[in-house]
């Protein structure tokens, strides 16, 4: 077949080309349409939640809300703002996120820099020690017993210290450090710079984008963290936002099944969506910065996970 096409005379090939570009347009449109559908599939549920959170109770009761707020009403947001425990959770999680991301970044830098140095004796051994922890997890209960023995149960720091270094992020930073030319380090050393100087004056300034990305990764991870709070936190004033949100959504689900009046149920639905918005908006705010860099992060990770 292919050979025949190659031997086709000029004129015929030309007409074929015209046909092809026409069918090309059609496939283009089909592909665009399919991607458009996918985008809708992603966006519409979020839009619906956002619209519900901004709509009046009456509109929700009458099942009028689709993707745009009906009879705009900020009552649900006011309720969230007036809910002291919710506000406390938000503030706590904000502080937690900053503390945790800072701590994690410091540790990750301190770990990645030595491992990126070729002259570092014992690099292979340290690498192995660290990589093993990526593949073998002692499990939920041994971790729990250990945290309990350390006296960290129900403590702010239990959501900071045990999640200190993500090996995956550390490897990304290490590869980034390794891509910085060795000659820079060597010439600095000849000028008498110590590793501390090299790290703070050369490596950190040169890897600002990577550091920003990883900080955001850690921050988003901490903001979204649920499991460790579920396991280790029991007092109300330490509930992070995700856990609080889980409770709001599920207590109300329980209330629903206990056949409360319709009005009560719907009012709570507005509150649920508003709470979801509160937990989501910070992520959406940092997302543009996140997206700028994570593509490289993912590909580095896939090359050497």
């Amino acid at each position, binding site marked *: 077949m*292919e050979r025949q*096409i*190659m031997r086709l005379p000029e004129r015929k090939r030309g007409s074929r080309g015209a046909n092809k570009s026409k069918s090309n347009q059609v496939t283009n449109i089909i*592909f*665009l349409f*399919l*991607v*458009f559908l*996918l*985008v809708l599939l992603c966006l519409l*549920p979020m839009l*619906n939640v956002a619209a519900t959170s901004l709509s009046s109770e009456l509109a929700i009761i009458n*099942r009028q809300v*689709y993707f745009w707020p009906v009879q705009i009403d900020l009552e649900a947001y006011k309720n969230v703002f007036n809910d002291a425990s919710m506000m406390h959770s938000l503030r706590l999680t904000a502080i937690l996120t900053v503390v945790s991301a800072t701590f994690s970044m410091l*540790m990750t830098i*301190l770990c990645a*820099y*030595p491992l990126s*140095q070729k002259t*570092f*004796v014992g690099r292979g051994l*340290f690498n192995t020690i660290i990589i093993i*922890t990526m*593949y073998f997890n*002692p*499990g939920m*209960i*041994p*971790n*729990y*017993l*250990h945290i309990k*023995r350390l006296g960290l149960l129900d403590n702010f720091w239990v959501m900071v210290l045990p999640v*200190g*270094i993500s090996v995956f992020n550390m490897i990304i930073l290490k590869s980034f450090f390794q891509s910085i030319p060795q000659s820079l380090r*060597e010439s600095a*050393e*000849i*000028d*008498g*710079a*110590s*590793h501390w100087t090299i790290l703070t004056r050369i490596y950190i300034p040169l890897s600002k984008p990577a550091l920003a990305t990883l900080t955001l990764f850690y921050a988003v991870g901490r*903001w*979204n963290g*649920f499991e460790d709070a579920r396991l280790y936190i029991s007092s109300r004033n330490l509930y992070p936002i995700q856990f609080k949100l889980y409770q709001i*959504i599920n207590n109300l689900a329980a209330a629903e099944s206990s056949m409360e009046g319709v009005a009560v149920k*719907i009012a709570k*639905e507005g509150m649920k969506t508003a*709470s*979801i918005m509160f*937990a989501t908006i910070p992520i959406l705010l940092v*997302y543009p910065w*996140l*997206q700028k860099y994570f*593509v490289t992060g*993912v*590909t580095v990770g*896939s*090359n050497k996970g």
Partner: protein
Amino acid sequence: MSVSTKQQRRMVLPELEAEKGKWKKIRKNDYALYIMIFLPLLYFVLFKYIPMTDIVVAFKDYNMFHTVWSSPWADELLKYFKMAFSSKDFLRALRNTIVLNFLDLLVGFPVPIIIALLLNEITIFKRFKRFAQTVLYMPHFLSWTIISGMALLVLAPENGLVNILLSRMGAKTIPFLSNKYLWIATYVGLGIWQSAGYTAIVYLASIAGINPELYEAAEMDGAGRMRKIWHITLPGIRPTIVVMLILNLGRILNISLERPYTMGNYLVRGVSDVISTYVYRVGIESQQFSLATAVGLFQSVVCVIFLVAANIICERLGERGIW
């Protein structure tokens, strides 16, 4: 400053000094590296390695009145493993874990590949393409609590968007989260919703690495869009597909707590109770630490074996392994 001048004298030719001993000698300047890595190593020892010693709990009759070391050994060393494997609840959790992960893989695995192919084929409306990518990657950054919460609202039997639309069209409402088969479908569907777009990045990167001359040559031979996808793009990303598939198979017993925990409810316990939720319930809630640890250890060991096997297979196939 005096330190650095001293070092300066010592460090005239660092490279020479490093090469002096054939067996690696630690350079004076590198001592700082050990100071730097001290805290991270302490972290790994304290939070990753010491908990490993607590695994002995699986072989002991541990309770709250003893420490891990002072509690007596179980009369039969594998008592709690036997207990687990004769417990209906555990076997159900094991089955559910495998079923959910397998369905995730079967249904969810091709989706990112298709998304990557679609995105790659969009050559017009670049702005729209960028927008689409932005939107498709985003769900990955939402927590399962948020996603489950949204699902609970959007898929609610009466006031959920989907069922409102269905009833407007005169169709029956669908109990997405209370019927067990529909719950499984929702679980898998939400998994795809959350991660398919983001995973597509890996395939897009792989597609970007395909030699463009291949496409030009195929065009010369008169190949159309579909044939190029089928004969060049897909074979081009085959190595990535194989690695991703094997890695996912290696994780067949891995399951997070958050996703089934936040999505599940008592009506579907029969299909939503997986190993992680089982360990949580038995270990933390009813304090049967030994049994829960045994189950967790079984899971961890199987996971490691599968991962190592997956890596070996990857390397045998001539692909780059995971480490």
